[in-house]
């Protein structure tokens, strides 16, 4: 019995490991390439992680550096180029600013609306909820063109506002928080009213703290979506590097390729991908629960 079972288990593990290898393949390619010298990349040598033999940086020479000063290791040269050929720090900062601003504004707008929809009776509530449900059907990416035209008419393209504004109201966020608020007992709100809280105090001091799991799930959903978003920034940011988000910056890096740039480009990709992947690896349970919660609405 045990024997038959373990044969079965072995087969399952074999399948799962094969799958894992395919899934991890590009991550490996990214990491390995970011560590290798141009010669190793071009010839496909260098083993898994490159030999890290000392080399002279071509890029450094072209910029007029002395040969001795340009002696470096492949990994160092790749990352140095990633950060000097393009303002990568700036891109990262922009990514943080944009994702944080989007999430904060989404919360600021969605939480009171969700509270009103879940717990207050007022004229037009059903209509407002119907509007939210309808808006859930509209992917923002699909209406990018008219949104772009509207922003262009307002003269707002190539600005932080253009990156942030279309996302500040999330029908999904309102819906998710409303579903969560529905489970908060009415008694708790009445108790808060008896204790002397107004509706605003109830939202921020009672509802929000009880809804932390839902809010966290929404935060993960929102940050992952907007840190990785490429389509919208691509449309509204044209040319001005100081406004580039990380994916835009990487895309620009890809512009001219002649073999020698693969190392620095993969280093850039690694820098861009790492924050979320690292956060996920640290707080896996939270991420998966959060994605499940936002997924299953």
């Amino acid at each position, binding site marked *: 019995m045990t024997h038959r079972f373990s044969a079965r288990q072995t087969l399952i593990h074999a399948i799962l490991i094969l799958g894992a290898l395919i*899934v*991890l393949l*590009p991550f490996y390619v990214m990491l390995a*390439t970011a560590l290798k010298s141009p010669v190793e990349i071009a010839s496909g040598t260098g083993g898994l992680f490159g030999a890290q033999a000392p080399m002279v940086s071509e890029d450094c020479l072209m910029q007029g550096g002395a040969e001795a000063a340009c002696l470096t290791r492949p990994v160092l040269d790749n990352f140095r180029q990633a950060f000097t050929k393009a303002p990568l720090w700036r891109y990262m900062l922009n990514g943080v600013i944009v994702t944080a601003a989007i999430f904060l504004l989404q919360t600021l707008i969605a939480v009171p609306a969700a509270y009103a929809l879940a717990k207050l*009776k007022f004229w037009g509530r059903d209509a407002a909820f119907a509007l939210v449900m309808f808006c859930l059907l509209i992917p923002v990416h699909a209406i990018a063109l008219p949104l772009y035209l509207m922003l262009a008419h307002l003269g707002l393209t190539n600005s932080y506002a253009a990156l942030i504004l279309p996302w500040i109201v999330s029908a999904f966020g309102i819906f998710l928080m409303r579903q969560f608020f529905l489970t908060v007992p009415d008694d708790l709100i009445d108790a808060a009213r008896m204790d002397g809280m107004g509706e605003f105090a109830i939202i921020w001091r009672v509802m929000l703290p009880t809804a932390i799991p839902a809010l966290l799930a929404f935060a993960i959903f929102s940050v992952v979506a907007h840190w990785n978003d490429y389509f919208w920034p691509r449309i509204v940011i044209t040319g001005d590097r100081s406004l580039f988000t990380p*994916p835009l910056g990487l895309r620009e890096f890809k512009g001219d390729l002649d073999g020698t740039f693969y190392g620095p480009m993969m280093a850039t990709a690694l820098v861009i991908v790492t924050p979320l992947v690292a956060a996920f690896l640290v707080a896996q349970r939270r991420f998966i629960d959060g994605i499940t919660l936002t997924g299953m609405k």
Partner: protein
Amino acid sequence: MPDTPRLNRPEHRQARAGSALIAPAVLLLLVILILPVAVAAILSFSDYTLGRSGIGWVGLKNYADIFTRSSYRKMITATVLYVLVTVPVSVALGLGAALLIRSVRIGASFYRTVYFLPVMASLLAMAIVWEFALHPSLGLVNRTLAQGCGTWLEGWPWFARGCAEGFPLWLSDRDYALWTLAFIGIWQSFGFNMVLYLAGLTSVPRDLYAAAEMDGVRSGWARFRLITWPMLGPTTVFVVTISTIRSFQVFDTVEALTHGGPAKSTYVMIYAIYEKGIAQNLVGMGAAITVLFLGFVMLISVAQRRFVERKVHYA
């Protein structure tokens, strides 16, 4: 009520607070989501371009073009084909991975983590990595394949041809490009489906399996048909819907790797909207494609809601 001013009644205070709290959200939903839909619908009947004053109305011409011109027919073919390939495979792989992961005694969380990684990583960044991995000469994939030359693998005609004439240019051969993009799409999304299926599986009551055992259900397949698959019904409806809507919106890989080519074989709708409406400033055409696209997406969502309405009530 004679002695209490109406406005002081708790119901009225609540109603006032409710309207005030919902107002910003409603206003923004109307401006940011509803108004653009209307704008797109109107502009789709025009030849408007950004920067030119005045607007010419062309009636249904843009729509007629979509259905008659071969490049737009190719657009619809590419989009539908991409969706039809990506969705079933990524849903099936998601379910398969979830079932396998549920059945292993050790390492479940390791596999779950690994399979979920692509969902976290920027698709654009990973697309560029894939492009490099699939590079005809430098890429790991073709190099690895080339190592199989001269072995028994050459018994496979496709492989033998690859060894003789070079392995495919995955992204610049029109016979392969769309399939390669679909593969990247599946690679990126099936972990998400897996996580949803894992959640769905935990909500299947264990007692059902015990009852099935008592009722004489022996084979794993019979258990799956009798319990697992029907119990996962709502999950499947949701996973299929969300996968479909997401794959309809594929853009990053197309823009970064193929630009809709070769020969429009990967000219999907969102990319067409971007290229026509924004890059080439043919706003009317872009708007018409937008309207068509919204139609597709809403049709799917409405179908899904109809499907689950009997089971789930949001009110």
